[in-house]
């Protein structure tokens, strides 16, 4: 994969309603968790989550009748377009695609409270009214390909990887790429039944970690060819340099303990970027706070990136499923640009079983290239290599 320019970025999650708000809250150490506030009253709500509050959504001109997944996507897309100094109609009828990862955004409204309002529609129209990819394409009047990726927790990272391929193979000049997911009782209780959730705010890589907290949000990149950027005088914010993906092919809910799938994905990502492991200046780990995940990631990072700093940002955002990879890519780009990593929120006590430990305090980093990795239910491993503005030779 050749590099693909990042022309604009948008992000909304528990940290903040915009990318800048998120980065500010990140470095301020804000952790906005709480018990779920929107579930029906008979659903159990004893485990904390990272919600996006209504006050983040309400200022934007997208109706409350839309599923939250869609509203957040449209908000993030508008931010990305604004950052590239593009108006809604500027991409109309051009070779611009949409590639988004989501889990809730494909269920045609039935678990997001829209069931009553869409149940009279034909299935196809139900999907059209509730799917974020379709809504972005219609809002911006785009003529390029569309795809909704449903790879569980790595859906958003994979959507970005595929979008980049559309650009480098010449199918598209630009792509709106990212991910979105909202909190729902089905997923919350499903994770609870698998004993994956923590009763406390999550503690990535910590000795006493017990599990993850779910989150929600959306993050969108306006990806573009460098020719597209030049023709519109867009100064790229950074670049996606490589993408790798591999399957564990072993167990449906638990990652491989030898981390082989993750290792293969990292290797593919760096190979396609034409980079060596030691050129990476830090790693944004998946770091959910589950015992098994954090152990294997620590082992892989210790092996492949010895001595390099790494962090998990899920102590600030929760695990936003399909949005997790894109949100973390936004935060990774932000950290690269600032030359600094925030502390790994929730991490206080090193686990003696782990060969590598994340940054516990704000830490300066030097370099222009970072890796962000996502591991999914079903065994998918997705890795993105991100370069800041200064990464070009």
């Amino acid at each position: 994969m050749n590099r693909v320019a990042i022309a604009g970025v948008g992000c909304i999650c528990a940290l903040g309603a915009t990318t800048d708000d998120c980065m500010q809250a990140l470095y301020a150490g804000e952790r906005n968790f709480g018990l779920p506030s929107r579930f029906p009253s008979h659903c159990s709500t004893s485990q904390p989550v990272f919600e996006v509050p209504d006050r983040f959504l309400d200022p934007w001109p997208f109706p409350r009748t839309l599923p939250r997944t869609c509203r957040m996507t449209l908000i993030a897309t508008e931010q990305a377009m604004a950052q590239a100094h593009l108006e809604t109609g500027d991409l109309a009828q051009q070779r611009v695609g949409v590639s988004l990862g989501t889990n809730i955004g494909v269920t045609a409204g039935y678990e997001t409270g829209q069931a009553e309002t869409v149940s009279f529609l034909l299935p196809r129209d139900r999907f059209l009214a509730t799917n974020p990819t379709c809504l972005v394409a219609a809002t911006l009047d785009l003529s390029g390909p569309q795809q909704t990726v449903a790879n569980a927790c790595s859906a958003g990272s994979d959507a970005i990887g595929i979008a980049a391929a559309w650009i480098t193979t010449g199918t598209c000049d630009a792509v709106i790429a990212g991910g979105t997911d909202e909190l729902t009782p089905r997923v919350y209780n499903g994770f609870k039944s698998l004993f994956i959730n923590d009763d406390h705010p999550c503690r990535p890589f910590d000795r006493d970690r017990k599990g993850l907290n779910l989150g929600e949000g959306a993050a969108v990149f306006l990806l573009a060819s460098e020719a597209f950027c030049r023709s519109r005088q867009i100064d790229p914010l950074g670049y996606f340099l490589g993408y790798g993906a591999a399957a564990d092919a072993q167990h449906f809910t638990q990652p491989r303990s030898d981390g082989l799938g993750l290792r293969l994905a990292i290797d593919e990502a760096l190979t396609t970027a034409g980079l060596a492991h030691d050129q990476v200046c830090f790693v944004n780990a998946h770091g959910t706070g589950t015992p098994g995940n954090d152990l294997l990631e620590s082992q892989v990072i210790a092996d492949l990136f010895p001595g390099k700093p790494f962090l998990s940002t899920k102590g600030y955002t929760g695990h936003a499923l399909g949005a997790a990879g894109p949100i973390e890519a936004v935060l990774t780009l932000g950290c690269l640009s600032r030359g600094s990593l925030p502390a790994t929120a929730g991490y206080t006590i090193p686990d003696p079983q782990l060969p590598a430990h994340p940054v516990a305090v704000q830490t300066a980093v030097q370099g222009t290239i970072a890796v962000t990795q996502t591991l999914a239910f079903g065994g998918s491993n997705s890795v993105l290599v991100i370069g800041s503005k200064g990464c070009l030779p």
Partner: protein
Amino acid sequence: MKVAIRGIGVVGGFGSGLPALEKALDGRRIAPTDISIPTREGAILVPCLTADTGPLADYIPTRVLRRMDHYIRLGLLAAFGAMTEAGILDKSRRGRLGIIVATGSGATGNNYNFQHPYEDMEEICGSPIRFSNSVHNAAAAYISIALAEMGPNHSITHDDLSFPAALMTAVTWLQQRRVDAVLVGGVDALSHAHAYAWHAHRQARRVVKNLREAQKQIPMAGEGACFFVLKATGTDSATCPVIRETALGRICKGPLPRPMGDYYILGEGGLAATRADYGKWLLPGARATCYAHVYGDMAIDSAFDTAIAALSLRNNRIYAAGSVSQPVQERELLADRSVVCLKLGVGNTFGWTLFD
């Protein structure tokens, strides 16, 4: 980039395997099954074209399958069929394989579910087995586990453009030389919403005589899976159907990006398709057929159309079971016609595949 279809696996209301599909294409009648569809007014019985996954036991012991639901089993059966025909079930003959699964109705067939208030979802929420099976990449994940395949694994859920998007992604991966082969296909378990829509449409036809859409015969809701093994064309694929080009996009103002074909297989099944205007896409004098009645109404219909196109090319046939404006002659030959599969889908989108 041209890609060759090296293997095809199918399962649907017509049975499983290509011979069963060919019999149905030659006109063998498929008996529907009455399925109980829950509604707020009580259960109703609706005839549907349902698929049997019994033959999966030829590939995987039933005790290994026990937690896998119908949706996952449909995917496994068709995937194994394609891998077997391609001769790469054996890992040593495989090279690096990517897996891409497209679905419209999704894991558990419930994406369009219209009768589940939150209370009913407790059953899906709280049971770890049912929850795991409801995660959207369930089929792709279990296929990778069954094949012990660690290559890239991708699931697409985009209603009736899911399969065209999956096919385009497969071609992209081969173009990038990311993998040596791609196992790409579609899986749709029966969608109650599709079955109910057929039922409601049939009721409407009885009541409203002049409803324009009601004049068209709508296929029953179906289910099934259809998988392909694709490889870049090479010297050993002379007898394989070859895909020359795929396209995916949204219809905007201006000329339609029409494929240059002589024989079109149209993804015309389903209620919403009656509103689509396939006529504008056909070149003058082109032949067109639609086979939705053979496999039923479902979002991944274009996967079956692709299989039928491949069979047409392999066997130099235009199959009789296509519903057409001009009837298909018995044993009508495909001859030198260039074949196109065309799907007009959700949100004014299109996906087409042009064969060599």
